[in-house]
């Protein structure tokens, strides 16, 4: 199967994933016995006028599929409904928070790429103290869940050393970065371990491959061999694991935002789940799942770009 067909097929799978996900998210309204109305109001008592508004907005008198269709087309136009708790457009509420979440995930992704891949490459190419210490450190941090890491970081760096503020968002760009640093580290820490290990293993393996011997036997300088053969080939599994890890950050980010009391989409999602504010939960879930699926698809595309042997429906996972 040519690369183009592979990419088209992958894109179609992306759309199917999103469709199924949106269906599940929407269908959650109906899962509990009782009417979707009860789910939407989250058990609150509302005046009849409000109920009429809900009826009209969500087309509650029409069939399931039609309601799904209205909801989906609204969502695609940027209209995600109204929060029952805050009486505001979900989209508006989310808009203010997106910056924090995107910044946090990007910051953590940067740490993972620079530290994780960097350490992995160094450990692979220089056996010795650096290698062993990297292995030990990654073994420990691999099992460190983000919320535990968060507590450790706050204890050491905020309370004891006063290097960073413990909680909350910042007020300007510089202050933002300061406030987001510990959360980003907490978010990145357990993923860092696996990226570093996979990088180290991949580079080690490539360095031992026979085609590297061929290049050496032809007198090609080592730095060229490193760049064009070892790292270039190792980039395939490294990109895959980094991409998958960054995608998973999207889910863990809710935990870190809660731990650090940040105003992000994740923290808002959790609060809405507690409040049974379903419109918000649906809206944020839809956005996060879309981001997750899109990142995974980018990983698959990169994999196809980097490896010319890719064929027949293989995905990077």
């Amino acid at each position: 199967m040519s690369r183009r067909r592979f990419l088209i097929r992958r894109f179609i799978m992306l759309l199917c994933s999103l469709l199924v996900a949106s269906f599940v998210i929407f269908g959650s309204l109906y899962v509990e016995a009782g009417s979707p109305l009860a789910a939407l109001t989250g058990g609150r008592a509302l005046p009849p006028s409000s109920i009429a508004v809900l009826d009209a907005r969500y087309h509650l008198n029409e069939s399931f599929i039609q309601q799904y269709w209205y909801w989906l087309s609204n969502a695609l136009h940027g209209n995600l409904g109204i929060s029952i708790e805050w009486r505001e457009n979900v989209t508006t509420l989310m808009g203010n928070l997106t910056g924090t979440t995107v910044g946090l995930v990007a910051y953590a992704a940067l740490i993972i790429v620079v530290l994780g891949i960097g350490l992995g490459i160094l450990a692979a190419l220089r056996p010795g103290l650096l290698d062993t210490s990297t292995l030990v450190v990654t073994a420990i941090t691999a099992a460190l869940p983000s919320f535990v890491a968060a507590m450790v970081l706050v204890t050491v760096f905020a309370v004891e050393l006063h290097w960073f503020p413990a909680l909350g968002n910042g007020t300007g760009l510089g202050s933002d970065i300061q406030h987001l640093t510990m959360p980003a580290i907490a978010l990145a820490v357990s993923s860092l371990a696996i990226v570093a290990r996979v990088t180290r293993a991949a580079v080690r393996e490539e360095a031992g491959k026979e085609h590297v011997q061929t290049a050496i036997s032809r007198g090609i300088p080592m730095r060229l061999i490193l760049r064009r053969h070892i790292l270039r080939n190792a980039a395939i599994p490294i990109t895959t694991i980094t991409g998958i890890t960054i995608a998973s950050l999207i889910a863990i980010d809710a935990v870190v935002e809660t731990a650090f009391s940040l105003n992000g989409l994740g923290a808002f999602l959790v609060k809405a789940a507690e409040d049974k504010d379903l419109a918000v939960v649906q809206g944020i879930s839809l956005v996060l799942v879309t981001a997750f699926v899109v990142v995974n698809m980018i990983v698959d595309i990169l994999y196809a770009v980097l490896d010319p042997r890719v064929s027949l429906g293989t995905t990077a996972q």
Partner: protein
Amino acid sequence: MTAIALRRHRSTKLRHSFAVLRRSFALLRQTGPAGIVSAAVVAVATFVAIFGPWLAPYNTELPDTQLAFVGPFGGHLLGLDFEGRDVLSRLLAGAQSSMVGPLAVVVISLGLGVALAVTTAWRRGFTDASISAGLDILFAFPGILLAVLATAVFGPGLVAASIALSISYVPYVARVLRGAALKERGQPYVAALEVQGASGPSICLRHIVPNMMPLIVAQATIMFGWAMVDLAAISFLGLGVQAPAPNWGVMISENEVGVLQGYPLPCLAAGACVVLVVIAFNILGERLFERATAR
């Protein structure tokens, strides 16, 4: 059966069980020192999970806010938490809810995963392609998000979260086990059994699945670690086990104020419990996995 035959039958079964036990210990010894230590930690954790509430020396739920965050003293090895309760007792009692959830997740997702893997491997062709494609599509839902959605709909609690998490793990499990199932399917003994007239389901249940057992057990062990982390996270968020019930994830969340005020012990102690048990399961699982795939 006559009395003599019955006694002989029972003693054979007893000897058989001992043989299995001995083989398991031999297997364990082969996993190296790290494997043995991890297995010990797992065993201790399981023991505490079962007997924790009885082992706890002090009351785990009676608050006494006057004594909040008092450091270790007297019989309180780890001090008191944010509501004046003994931290050690709550940790011991909390082991139960911290580990029973992951157990359920592992059982459900493995059950479904094995069933799907074996079915796709057995039927191959269209069934395989469609189920695999379906599972690929399901990869869309990260576990924690699905659990949050479930708790928003069904209300917070361990049950909703565990089931949601199980469902999100199934695509991964099915994919990993599908390879092994396909390999078993291709073995000559399966063809031999088919020729003899054995039915598909019976071959799968009585031969293919038992032969996949080492891999299934290894996968279960590794997944237990992940499930523990995910469920602790959900309880930390307040959507899993609810306070004031003892649970490690809950304890980390409710004692966060202590960290900010300079009393990190209750919070970090609970965190340490989670981390230690997860590391043990990870190491043990990895060793078992290496052994299962080495053949």
